[in-house]
């Protein structure tokens, strides 16, 4: 079986978010990049499935310039089998999804996996867009995934509860929290092996740009925290009621 896992390369979760050039550009100074957490958890689950049935080839794909290769190598070191980079600056979600769909169209994957969202753009878009480009069924926000001979069995967790979906190949699934417990850390052997794994670079296909970010802004700084003495907790209740008017 073959799966295509989409990996997004994002600033580390502890990065200070700042902008430069008149608030039009993300400030990359001192920013470390990582595999977006939901993609990392999805990779972990795919490796568990691979280890359990010994029949799953995991190809990862990232749309980005050469800078993303370090992040892709990390995914290879953790255990993905090979990698494809679409050589282009990711303009917007539709552009990224189009690139992934084009690669998937010419190579036969049994299913495609994405993370629920990338933690930078918080778009929550690419997975469903890929599915629509390929006219495939999709199951988003999967909190559990099992793979059988010709289908996936997916538990989808939402605000209102849970759903179980059984869907035949091919399909698109997006992983969220719960899909795996802890992300894996690459070991020495994994790192050595990853150097021998294939990382193919392919050109981008054309796609209209339908959205651009014109300006960034940070939330207004909070006023100073009003401290209330511990022995007068009733004062907090009074303030929440009379001043903040939230209870």
């Amino acid at each position: 079986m073959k799966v295509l896992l989409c990996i997004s390369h994002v600033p580390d979760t502890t990065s200070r978010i700042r902008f430069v050039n008149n608030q039009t550009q993300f400030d990359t100074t001192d920013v470390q990049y990582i595999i977006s957490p939901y993609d990392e958890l999805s990779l972990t689950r795919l490796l568990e499935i691979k280890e359990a049935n010994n029949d799953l080839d995991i190809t990862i794909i990232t749309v980005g310039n050469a800078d993303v290769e370090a992040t892709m190598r990390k995914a290879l070191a953790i255990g993905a089998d090979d990698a494809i980079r679409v050589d282009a600056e990711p303009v917007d979600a539709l552009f990224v999804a189009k690139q992934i769909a084009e690669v998937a169209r010419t190579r036969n994957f049994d299913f495609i996996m994405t993370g629920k969202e990338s933690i930078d753009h918080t778009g929550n878009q690419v997975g469903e867009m890929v599915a629509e480009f390929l006219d495939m069924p999709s199951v988003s926000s999967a909190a559990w995934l099992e793979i059988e001979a010709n289908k996936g069995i997916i538990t989808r967790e939402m605000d209102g509860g849970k759903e179980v979906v059984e869907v035949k190949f091919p399909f698109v699934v997006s992983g969220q929290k719960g899909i795996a417990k802890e992300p894996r850390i690459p070991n020495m052997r994994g790192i050595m092996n990853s150097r021998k794994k294939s990382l193919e670079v392919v050109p981008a296909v054309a796609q209209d740009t339908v959205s651009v970010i014109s300006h960034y802004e940070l939330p207004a700084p909070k006023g100073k925290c009003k401290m209330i003495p511990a022995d007068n907790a009733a004062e907090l209740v009074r303030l929440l009621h009379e001043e903040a008017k939230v209870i």
Partner: protein
Amino acid sequence: MSVLVYTENWDGRFKKSTYELVSYAKAIATELKLPLVALSIGNVSEAEFSKLELYGADKLVLVNTEKLHTFVAQAYTHTVYQVAKAENASVLLFNNNYTGRSLAPRLSVKLNAGTATGVVKLPASYAPFIVRKSIYTGKAFADVELLSAVKILTLNQNSFEIRENATGAKVEVREVEVLDKHLAAMPTKVEKASGKMNLTDAEIVISGGRGLKGPENWGMVEELADLLGAGTACSRPVADSEWRPHHEHVGQTGKVVRPNLYIAIGISGAIQHLAGVNSSKVLVAINNDPEAPFFEAADYGIVGDAFAVVPKIIDAVKAMKASH
């Protein structure tokens, strides 16, 4: 042309977030001088659906085909698409929830439309069309310009106040084409969350962290939540240690909540935790360490032992309720 708003129902009912969305859509439609069409799919009564007329819908389109009683992304997309085409919609609006986040991107492909997910206010301008959305899990905002003819937005909860704007519109039942191939991902089992409130709907959230030491100490958290009609949440290590169910975990990798009031008890305030809660209107931190980073993000703080402070808060809330 028209503005189309997709109004999701839960067991035949709408939620506050639906009324927020319709009010928001009406404001956009008014600005663009276009009629507002509300679409509902599935089993919702005409009486319930008619209520949306109160918030400004000029047309109420109900698709109540048996095959669409359970949400399947592909089939619902095809349905919204047909209505959008029939109504010549130039702006499509959804709530930024699980359903909206499935439909908006798919429609973006079908309509070659620019999409902004998680928008937080009315567009700053309409030509060019620029709207603000939340990014970096709530740590920043981006103004996105949508360049396409058709635009799609998903609105964050608690970002727009409900406005009444009655039109007197009547429900119109419409048939659509449903293709069997679009039902391939039909759920085989649907489990509704039991009785408890959805965390993301809660106006008040009481949350506990590792400072509470163990699951046996959550009694006071639940008592305070019950008193205030609040939802309960927790930090990630608390869910990871299985002190609390996973659906309570908030933060960068858990749920994002935007209540009016978030009370954090024994939570240090790590950046990944704050990412999921810092769009709350009022933040309260209770922590025995005066250096806890949460105090930098909070509006109100108490430095003290949670096991002494929380019972006092409970008593004060009871006293307040008794005096009203």
